[in-house]
């Protein structure tokens, strides 16, 4: 193979790639927070709500965890305009990823809700906590503590999953890489650099999450 690596030609585009990386992180963070909110609410209803609501939630979870995320976003992007709802690529990706994360985070948190300590729930009850207060002060700290590792793993997966946005023309890291590649034709260099940025991004995220888990939730976990 007589290919000569020429990183010098790609180097000037680093700021653009980093801008893209920031956008990737932003999409992942927003979708994760939205998904966490949905997941927490739905896991609460699944644990304590009426049967019909649980069935409805199950249908949502089954639908979103058993279809490809790409198809879900295509659906939002191409099918909703027929119903009069026009979404920008960014909005379609963000909403799609949020709904998808909501389904997965419901399912992950379900395990935490089910493993809540009945003795603590009872203690809270006789101390005058209502159901919402029990969830807030007893169940969620327990969920955060025991499920912190799988929840942070899901965040990492979502950070990488944002590359899907490139398909819709969103200029996040992968989108920017495609742009730079089209301008320089230095594919190997461009995608090597892009890969390295993804690695740095997820490493930073894991370390940050590890520290958060260790100090905020007393989760017994190793730093990444």
């Amino acid at each position, binding site marked *: 193979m007589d290919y000569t690596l020429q990183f010098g030609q790609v180097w000037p585009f680093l700021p653009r790639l980093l801008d893209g990386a920031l956008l990737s992180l932003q999409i992942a963070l927003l979708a994760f927070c939205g998904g966490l909110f949905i997941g927490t609410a739905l896991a609460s209803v699944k644990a304590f709500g009426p049967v019909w609501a649980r069935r409805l939630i199950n249908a949502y979870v089954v639908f979103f965890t058993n279809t490809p995320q790409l198809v879900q976003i295509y659906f939002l992007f191409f099918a909703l305009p027929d119903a009069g709802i026009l979404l920008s690529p960014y909005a379609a990706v963000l909403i799609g990823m949020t709904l998808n994360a909501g389904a997965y985070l419901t399912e992950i948190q379900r395990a935490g809700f089910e493993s809540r*300590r009945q*003795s*603590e729930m*009872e203690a809270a009850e006789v101390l*005058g*906590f209502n159901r919402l207060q029990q969830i807030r002060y007893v169940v969620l700290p327990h969920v955060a503590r025991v499920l912190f590792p799988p929840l942070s793993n899901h965040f990492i997966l979502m950070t990488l999953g944002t590359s899907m946005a490139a398909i819709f023309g969103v200029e996040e890291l992968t989108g920017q890489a495609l742009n730079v590649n089209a301008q320089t034709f230095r594919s190997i260099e461009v995608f090597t650099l892009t890969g390295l940025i993804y690695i740095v991004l997820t490493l930073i995220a894991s370390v940050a999450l590890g520290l958060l888990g260790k100090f905020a939730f007393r989760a017994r976990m190793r730093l990444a």
Partner: protein
Amino acid sequence: MHHLDIKGLEAAYGAVPVLSGIDLPVAKGDVIGLIGPSGSGKSTILRVLMGLIPPTAGTVTLEGNLVDYRDAAAVRRLRERVAIVFQQYNLFQNMTVLENVTVAPVKIRKRPKGEVETEARALLAKVGLGDKLDRFPDQLSGGQQQRVAIARALALKPEILLLDEVTAALDPELVSEVLDSIRLLAEDGMTMLIVSHEMGFIREVSSRVAFLDRGRIIEMDDARTIFDAPREERTRSFVSKILRH
């Protein structure tokens, strides 16, 4: 007027009756010891009183007011005046000792944090844990955890305290530290219902002792009569078996 008056109380686990007509009048400052074999319904009385198990018949009157256990708001009001400590302490594992004691007064009753914390520190000092405020439950011994649970119950300033076999899960050498804390409460005039197998303690601290068997109070009298000269044959046989070792 009785502080707490239980009349004809019945309860069941599914189809199995556990309480079959309990009559128990409790005056202010009374310390009632509840003794009896396992499954006799001692703990169930406390759980029904707290609204954790619905009664199937009978009435509970708190200072002349009938408690309606089907009404969630009424049960909440009851829980502001009556507190319970469990056998397994049931501390919140994710909170420190101080947080365990302050969470209900601050977050549920909405009392000012500074004031509650001052009280909580005093309570914890009283049960001998003034130096463990920032520990988590899993860093404490069973006896220490149980004393935190007692402080947590007291932080709500209950008028009546229910103690459900609070020493049963403890190593023998840790029992006395918990009993000391309860003894102090009895001296302060707290109305208490105590379920326990610590017969020596029950005898010493109770103003009256009720012997239960199969969901009924077989005999109730002052501690000396129950332990030394019971009238009922079943009481006599239980007490003699217990005191033999």
